């Protein structure tokens, strides 16, 4: 392998480049990046950056003295992956490679139907965050569609600025998929404690306003007045460019447990990929920062070894900051049959809970309680390592 093209210039792409160099790849390394910005950190876009307490320079993911020897192709998108790993680009040029890392990420799912030109926001990029930030003035009415992590973090940040916030959630229970119904409800209870109205089981049918949004229209015929709207209803993977490439696409690039796509010399990682999940028994996209970073090393090892390297990853992990509380999750709660509160009490305050299946801890969630949470995270890692060794 002499020449590798990484398609995607955000966290998964940059982490792949780092991992390739760390694992001894000395050949030519090209990074194709759609956004004009150099790689930046997205988690603060809904938190510190949105609040104005963190500047743009602090978002940079690259080190000033970092020497990765990369060739950057910025402001161009991949349009097709052709035979023999030829990446076709939007400026009409091609990049041929011995190895391709697909790390094209995801973009926000959009609300169907027409929307007023102004005041309706999504949050994924630096430019999105700048535009949303300009709307957050004390007393303004912000309606957030979707009570997931993006919605909850923006609600928390906006509230801190003195914005009036209403969160609308289509599901009867918030965060049920991410955290399970019981814990999801407890965590979402933070909204009410902090003066944010959360309405669940609410169906949005449209956005009112000629030029600028004025209200969110609901299926029951009522509407919620809005000076600005944030839509946070999930993401869809950027994989359309891979149609006809021979890769298996089904809600993401379908991969084995190690990022292999089944096509020689092509691996995929980050939000665009759906790796096999042995616990679930099917591929699953994992749209978290830590997954993009840690799995890059695994995917790159797969690429360099031709699929021979089999390293065991750590348990899944993500964090969120809401209303001054750090929320952390580790493990996989799928199929849990019991929730045990280990510290504090289940409710809209700080607590630590474990998810169990047949008595065995499979995941942990903490609101606050950082040191105790770390112990559970390490225990889960030990279990994953020993399970991995048994399988090997």
């Amino acid at each position, binding site marked *: 392998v002499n020449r590798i093209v990484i398609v995607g210039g955000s966290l998964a792409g940059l982490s792949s480049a*780092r991992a390739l160099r760390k694992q001894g790849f000395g050949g030519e390394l090209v990074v194709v990046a759609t956004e004009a910005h150099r790689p930046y*950190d997205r988690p*603060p876009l809904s938190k*510190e950056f949105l609040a104005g307490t963190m500047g743009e320079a602090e978002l*940079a*993911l*690259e*080190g*000033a003295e*970092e020497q990765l020897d990369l060739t950057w192709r910025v402001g161009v998108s991949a349009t097709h992956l052709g035979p023999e790993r030829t990446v076709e680009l939007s400026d009409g040029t091609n990049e041929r490679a011995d190895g391709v890392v697909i790390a094209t990420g995801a973009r926000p799912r959009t609300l169907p139907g027409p929307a007023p030109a102004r005041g309706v926001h999504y949050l994924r990029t630096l430019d999105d965050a700048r535009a949303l930030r300009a709307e957050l003035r004390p007393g303004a009415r912000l309606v957030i569609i979707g009570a997931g992590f993006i919605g909850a973090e923006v609600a928390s940040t906006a509230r801190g600025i003195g914005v009036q916030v209403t969160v609308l959630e289509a599901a009867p229970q918030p965060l049920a998929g991410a955290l399970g119904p019981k814990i999801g409800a407890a965590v979402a209870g933070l909204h009410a404690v902090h003066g944010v109205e959360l309405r669940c089981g609410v169906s949005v049918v449209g956005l009112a306003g000629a030029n600028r949004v004025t209200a969110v229209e609901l299926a029951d015929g009522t509407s919620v007045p809005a000076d600005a709207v944030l839509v946070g209803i999930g993401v869809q993977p950027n994989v359309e460019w891979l149609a006809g490439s021979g890769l298996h696409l089904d809600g993401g690039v379908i991969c084995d447990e190690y990022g292999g796509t089944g096509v020689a010399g092509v691996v995929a990682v980050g939000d665009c990929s759906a790796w096999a999940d042995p616990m679930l028994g099917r591929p699953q996209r994992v749209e978290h*920062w*830590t997954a993009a*970073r*840690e799995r890059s090393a695994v995917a790159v090892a797969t690429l360099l070894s031709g699929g021979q390297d089999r390293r065991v990853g750590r348990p899944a992990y993500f*964090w969120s900051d809401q209303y001054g509380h750090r929320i*952390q999750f580790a493990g996989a709660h799928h199929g849990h049959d019991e929730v045990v509160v280990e510290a504090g009490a289940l409710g809209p305050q700080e607590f630590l809970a474990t998810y169990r299946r047949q008595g065995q801890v499979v995941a942990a969630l903490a609101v606050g309680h*950082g*040191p105790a*949470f*770390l112990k559970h*995270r*390490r225990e889960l890692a030990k279990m994953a390592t020993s399970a991995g060794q048994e399988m090997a």
Partner: protein
Amino acid sequence: MLFVCGAAELAPGEARRLDSEPPIAVFRTDDGELFAIDDTCTHQDASLAEGWLEGCEVECPLHASKFDLRTGAVDAPPARLPVRTHEVVVDADQIYVIASTAAVGS
């Protein structure tokens, strides 16, 4: 000199956070060695005492930058600046830290 805890109270692989200004994290590695560094990651507000300890390195729980407990050096971004290291003293089975007087972020 800041009192940390009794020597027996800090098991290998564990850490203590001191509510000093700025906060200090004290670690006992799996090999039994004691180290103290600034607790707050130089990148974002995260407690390194809640980080992942492996050998003589601790990894920030949020963004996975690793700090060397012996030197305070950081291995890879997003954190860019080293943390300060502090001297650890064990006297009569009690652990103490002598806080560095170096400027933060230097």
